[in-house]
């Protein structure tokens, strides 16, 4: 089990100095921060919006917003978490614009338990990596995560794909830690159920 660090013993993150320099007008320091996080922000935006052009726009807008609001960043969270939060909000706004008749929020569709109760009880054999080549596997994983409601997709992306901690995910989404945990569990179970269609062990005599 990973040790829980208390804030007092935590080392100062290297971003703190870069942010301080950027705040005082050092463009090179800000550019360094952009370099460090542009790929991550792009991936997060693409996962949420499922659209490459939108993700490019959002990445630019998120950094611009961060640049403009740098003075408001208090350093209570990590700079990267703050940045992800801006990008998530921009992405959800973009989804809302796309679906004018439907509201899109981090809370959408998360009240239902549909798909979170396991129904498929077949082992995955052979392993997904043995069953499909890399490009087929990528298609399956993309298609499957696209089918999740945005609220679940976002939590799963931050926690399990981008490897943020539960606390960082909660901060980035403006949710409580229990809310993140509950959504993460349901997102994982729904993905498992959907992936089982592709990866489940074939019964003998059953057509592939």
């Amino acid at each position, binding site marked *: 089990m990973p040790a829980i660090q208390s804030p007092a013993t935590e080392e100062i993150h290297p971003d703190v100095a870069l942010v301080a320099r950027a705040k005082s007008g050092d463009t090179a320091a800000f550019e360094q921060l952009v370099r460090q996080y542009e790929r991550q922000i792009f991936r997060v935006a693409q996962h949420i919006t499922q659209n490459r052009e939108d993700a*490019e726009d959002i990445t630019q807008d998120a950094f611009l917003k961060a640049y403009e609001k740098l003075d408001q960043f208090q350093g209570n969270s990590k700079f990267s978490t703050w940045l992800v939060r801006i990008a998530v909000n921009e992405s959800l706004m973009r989804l809302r614009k796309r679906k004018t008749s439907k509201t899109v929020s981090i809370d959408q569709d998360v009240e239902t338990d549909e798909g979170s109760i396991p129904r498929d009880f077949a082992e995955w054999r052979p392993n997904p990596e043995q069953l499909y080549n890399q490009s087929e596997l990528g298609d399956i994983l993309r298609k499957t995560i696209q089918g999740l409601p945005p609220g679940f997709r976002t939590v799963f992306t931050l926690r399990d794909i981008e490897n943020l901690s539960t606390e960082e995910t909660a901060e980035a989404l403006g949710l409580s830690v229990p809310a993140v945990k509950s959504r993460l569990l349901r997102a994982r179970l729904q993905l498992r159920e959907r992936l089982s269609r592709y990866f489940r062990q074939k019964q003998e005599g059953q057509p592939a």
Partner: protein
Amino acid sequence: MNCTDLLSHLSDYFDEQLTTELREEISVHTAGCQHCRVVLNTTHQTIEVYKGAELYEVSPQLRERLHNAIMAKCLAKK
């Protein structure tokens, strides 16, 4: 521990947030429950298969374009 209890602890199990006692209870339950054993294994595989996958590759060309666009926008605001 029953199947519903196990399900409610599943995420904490993978995130290594459970006490030794609860982990032990899970392993006792899964030893006798085929369904839960499969759910545990395949949920673990779900997490792992996504963890290793680079689903949206950022090519060097895209990265350069993005980077230049970000910096141009920010510097214009200066």
